[in-house]
């Protein structure tokens, strides 16, 4: 039992942070959760306040607002910088795998895709998200409205959970069907410009999946579970000793599945040593 929990530990933790975040928002809004008279987490994923003092803001949304030619209040800029630093340390797309509510839907769709219809209808380039990111900024400047925020299924789903507006689920349903039946990881892995934004940030991120080339047997288990398998290019990994691609979501799927324990979370620049993981029985097997 303990072994099962251990092998699913990152999935369990991810679901806990995802649902926990939503719960904090819902509790603060509808349940009046507060501490010292201040709501715990007031707002939504676009912009919020922790305990009425620390602002948080979606840096991509603030950037789009900036591109519309409007200087928002200092508060959201501070909030955006806090978020940038936070995910700059913890790996940009950590947001995608550990917080984003749409990840719940796309993970389910990806699982269904794997177990029911594992063929893609067509292929999309993974870099498409950067084009869409660029278009979101360009369109914001041209039409004077934050282009992605106005169509974002992430915001729509999140606001749907918090406020119940109706029709917000249609985009989410579309993503679910697309990811399940058309292209594997179609939304998160190819289209989402917010994911693209955090991918760019993730290039400088400090929390990385470390790789121990001397242990790896090239079995390929990690690649089958990874939502962005191109980041697990073993040649590149052997050279860098870690996953350096910003597209890595730090979801931690690859870590427990590796039979040789050659993958571990660690800080950028540090090295996995053979003694990092309790090695006794492995050395014994060898």
């Amino acid at each position, binding site marked *: 039992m303990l072994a099962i929990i251990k092998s699913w530990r990152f999935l369990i933790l991810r679901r806990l942070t995802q649902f926990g975040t939503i719960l904090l928002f819902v509790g603060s809004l509808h349940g009046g959760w507060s501490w010292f008279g201040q709501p715990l987490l007031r*707002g939504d994923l676009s912009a919020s306040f922790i305990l009425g003092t620390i*602002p948080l803001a979606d840096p991509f949304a603030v950037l789009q607002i900036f591109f519309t030619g409007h200087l928002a*209040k200092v508060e959201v800029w501070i909030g955006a910088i806090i978020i940038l630093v936070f995910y700059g340390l913890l790996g940009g797309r950590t947001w995608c795998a550990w917080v984003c509510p749409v990840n719940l839907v796309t993970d389910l769709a990806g699982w269904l895709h794997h177990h029911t219809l594992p063929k893609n209808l067509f292929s999309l380039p993974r870099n498409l998200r950067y*084009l869409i990111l660029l278009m979101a900024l360009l369109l914001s400047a041209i039409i004077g409205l934050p*282009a992605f925020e106005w169509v974002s299924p992430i915001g729509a789903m999140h606001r749907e959970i918090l406020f119940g507006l109706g029709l917000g689920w249609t985009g989410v349903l579309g993503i679910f069907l697309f990811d399940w039946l058309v292209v594997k990881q179609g939304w998160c892995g190819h289209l989402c410009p917010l994911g693209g934004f955090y991918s760019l940030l993730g290039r400088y991120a400090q929390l990385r999946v470390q790789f121990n080339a001397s242990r790896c047997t090239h079995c390929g288990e990690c690649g089958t579970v990874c939502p962005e398998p191109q980041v697990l290019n073993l040649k590149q990994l052997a050279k860098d000793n870690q996953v350096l691609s910003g597209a890595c979501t730090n979801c931690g799927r690859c870590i427990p599945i590796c039979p040789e324990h050659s993958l571990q979370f660690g800080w950028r620049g540090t090295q996995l040593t053979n003694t990092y993981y309790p090695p006794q029985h492995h050395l014994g097997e060898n």
Partner: protein
Amino acid sequence: MNSRRDFLQKTIQGAALATSGGLLWSYLVQRNAQAVPFALRPPGALPEADFNALCIKCGRCVAACPYATLQLAPVGVGAPLGTPYFQPRQVPCRLCQDIPCQRACPTGALSPQLTEITAARMGLAVIDTEHCLSWQGLRCEICYRVCPLREQAITIDARPRRLSKHAMLLPTIHSDACTGCGICEQACPAEVAAIRILPHAWVQGKIGDHYRLGWKQTDGITQTFTPALSNGENSSSAGGLDYLNDPELKY
């Protein structure tokens, strides 16, 4: 050679895809933005275009509103999805002195320059005189009595009638003081409210600068007024313009 052609073709195809996708995308966004006309915004909201650009849709104004006046717009109410609005017939704005919704706004879509709630201009009350009870000759004037800016935003004019009937007491709105809070709209006893809050742009006309209301001293047109000439000279030195009123002039 072949790869260069390939590259060019791919580039052109990609550009075409991006352009058509972008057109579709901006069409969707702009159509959503134009669905707006009847939406009443929280106090301090910037003009609609600026408000739409700045609103990050966080819902903090909604959470801050102590009367549950504000809502994030669902589909089909005329306001862009997820932006705050209110329906005064259901819950009007109670004009909180400390303006909690505006202070909660992180982006400034609800302008921080609004410091006095009575300076808010969320909309303008408009009376449908054909269905207003007071305008039919009944005693009502409820809108007048509930108005938080009574005698400024709304006044009662008495219109005498023939001897056997009491005078009509007619409510009149004054746009220089009406905040558009909608307390009158909620209170109106008519089956469908005969006084309603509408966005200023939809109900307010404009006289035009070339009309002079001569009896209003404030606009500067008095007996001694002399318009400046286009060459910058004062017309009094030009002569001839005002000769009918000047007995001293000899031509």
